[in-house]
């Protein structure tokens, strides 16, 4: 199976390690992984900002970039949700049937990373190890658009050395919301603040999630409040052993 890794613009720009961690996990499943070089951004920022034209143009481009893959894997619930749930909607409004069909085809075989390595190509051995307690934050799109809930937790449970403690309101939004975090900085920070309180209550050494956006938001608030001891890690970093 030819598996295309879609790296997401945030991972590409801010924390490439997440991309390499995802790559390592995918390779550990035995898949033939490719990372098409022409890929850029899935168009979600434009889509959620109401710029449908730009979103459609980027969706078409992404579909072209990933056309040769049997499956596409994304280390982000919200970008995977964009490809899987929202590209078909953009397809509805696409005047050109060939493009619309390409969007639908891509949507049908796109998976969020944890979903892929638990359901589609089960990972036999989790390569990493991590000492200490972690708590897991359910990122909104992954949870509510794709139903990602148990997968990452079960994967973490298989990792030697790690102990998972649940926080209060793990499913409540951290306040990221893409451009929301910039447009409504104060409200967004207040939301992040509650999330941080719940994380601190658990006494965990790290908060783990499946979306870099949420992680940057949470980490940013933790640092601003002087909590430097707690790390904010993508589950792929933890599972692959790339966290340190």
């Amino acid at each position, binding site marked *: 199976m030819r598996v295309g890794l879609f790296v997401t613009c945030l991972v590409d720009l801010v924390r490439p390690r997440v991309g390499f961690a995802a790559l390592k996990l995918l390779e550990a499943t035995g898949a033939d992984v490719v990372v098409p070089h022409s890929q850029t*951004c899935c168009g979600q920022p434009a889509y959620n900002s109401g710029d449908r034209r730009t979103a459609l143009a980027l969706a078409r481009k992404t579909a072209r970039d990933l056309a040769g893959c049997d499956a596409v894997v994304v280390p982000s619930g919200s970008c995977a949700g964009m490809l899987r749930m929202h590209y078909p909607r953009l397809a509805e409004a696409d005047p050109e049937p060939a493009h619309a069909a390409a969007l639908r085809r891509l949507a049908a075989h796109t998976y969020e990373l944890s979903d892929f390595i638990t359901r589609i190509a089960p990972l036999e051995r989790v390569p990493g190890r991590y000492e200490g307690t972690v708590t897991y934050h359910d990122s909104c799109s992954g949870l509510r658009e794709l139903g990602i809930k148990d997968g990452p937790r079960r994967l973490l449970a298989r990792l030697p050395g790690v102990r998972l403690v649940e926080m209060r309101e793990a499913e409540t939004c951290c306040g990221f919301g893409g451009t929301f975090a910039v447009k409504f*900085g104060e409200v967004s920070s*207040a939301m992040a603040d509650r999330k941080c309180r719940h994380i601190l209550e658990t006494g965990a050494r790290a908060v783990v999630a499946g979306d870099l956006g949420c992680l940057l938001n949470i980490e940013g608030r933790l640092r601003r409040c002087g909590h430097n001891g707690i790390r904010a890690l993508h589950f792929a970093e933890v599972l692959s052993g790339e966290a340190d």
Partner: protein
Amino acid sequence: MELSPARFKTQAAASLADARLQSALEKLQDRFVVGRAQALLELDNADAVRDAAADIRARTLANLDDYLERFEAAARAAGAEVHWAENASDVNRILVEIAARHGVKRVVKSKSMVTEECRVNEALGTAGLEVRETDLGEYILQLADEPPSHIVAPVVHKSRDEIADLFVEHHRTPRRETIPALVAEARERLRPAFLAADMGISGANFLVAETGSALIVTNEGNGRLATTLPRVHVAVTGIEKVVPTLEDVATLLRLLPRYATGQSITNYVSILTGPRRPDDGDGPEHFHVILVDNGRSRMLGTDRHDMLRCIRCGACMNHCPVYQNVGGHAYGWVYPGPMGSVLTPALLGPAEARDLPNASTLCGACAQVCPVKIPLPDLLRNLREEQVEQRLRPAGERLAIRLWGLLARHPFLYGVASGVIARALRLYAGRDGAIRRLPLGRGWTLGRDFPAPSGRTFRELYVRRGRA
């Protein structure tokens, strides 16, 4: 300062800075979020009931004119007078006419959001009528001269202490501390108002097409008093509230209180059909229904259509993390939370509420809890699209997204630009790896650092790794 949907940001900032409000909001969450979850446990096949409810609302809206005509005919047959109001000024004109016709001086009201929408109290006051709100919450707000901040629990933003102070100020009685004592004090004040009133105004949770009835659910007895004691009763409600049969209402009633307050049923459910008949024990001599459009029919068949399914339970706002932090007044108009972020621009026009559709992370919690399955995030996104089409968003924002889009369509340029940005931010961050002021992202760094990029993009590292 008067609240306005155009000032979401300033109002939200004020709410965040208000410590008393913050602690009140936290309690709201504990009470209603936990309450709803528990109340749903006792409902067998809650999912099926929810599907049925969404279906009833969708079916009714698909033939709204038909059901409204049936309602009108049945209500007339039962002796009610039915009035149609296209907008707020119609509502107020009709109310003043009814009052004049029946020689009304004093009016008691039971909570109704539509009358808030139409500023009925103001209009009736101008016409020389004395109006008294009779729900405990609305009564308190009338004393405080404030609008409601929640559609189900209008006064949820006030602490018991604030209410006690308010009563001392207005009633000039010794300060009472406990909730029962405060409730008793309000009741003492309200009883004479009920007895003296010539007209009662209420809303309606549902209108039953089959029987021509207005159905009202309340937890305080005031709804019943306002609709039965005065000589004249006027139910004022939106045209979208009609439901085909009593059976359908029964289905919706299994959800409404559970989703609203976590109760399996409210204390009072009144089904009001026409005025008092000769052998009735009580009831008004005259019963009027005002069917209010006020922008609703404009939503039919558009991207906002699904919003008309709303049964005003408030679950979406109780579960909305933005509402939980900023409360209802931040939204600036009658309807707060996610439902308000859709309804306000839909009813007032997109230019009146530019921020509201954007003031959401699209986290989806609202749609997850909506009993009639309104896809609120999709509706919010549609409104954003409409704003972009009508150029209602700031030029800088539209340009930034277009530029990003342009760049992202050209992988080579994109690679160069992202490489430059990653390095620049890395340098800018310095040793400790945190950016305290993000150029072009001031909103972010108001309350958060920005974790510095590692300095090389994935694309660069991947290519290099391939070569090595």
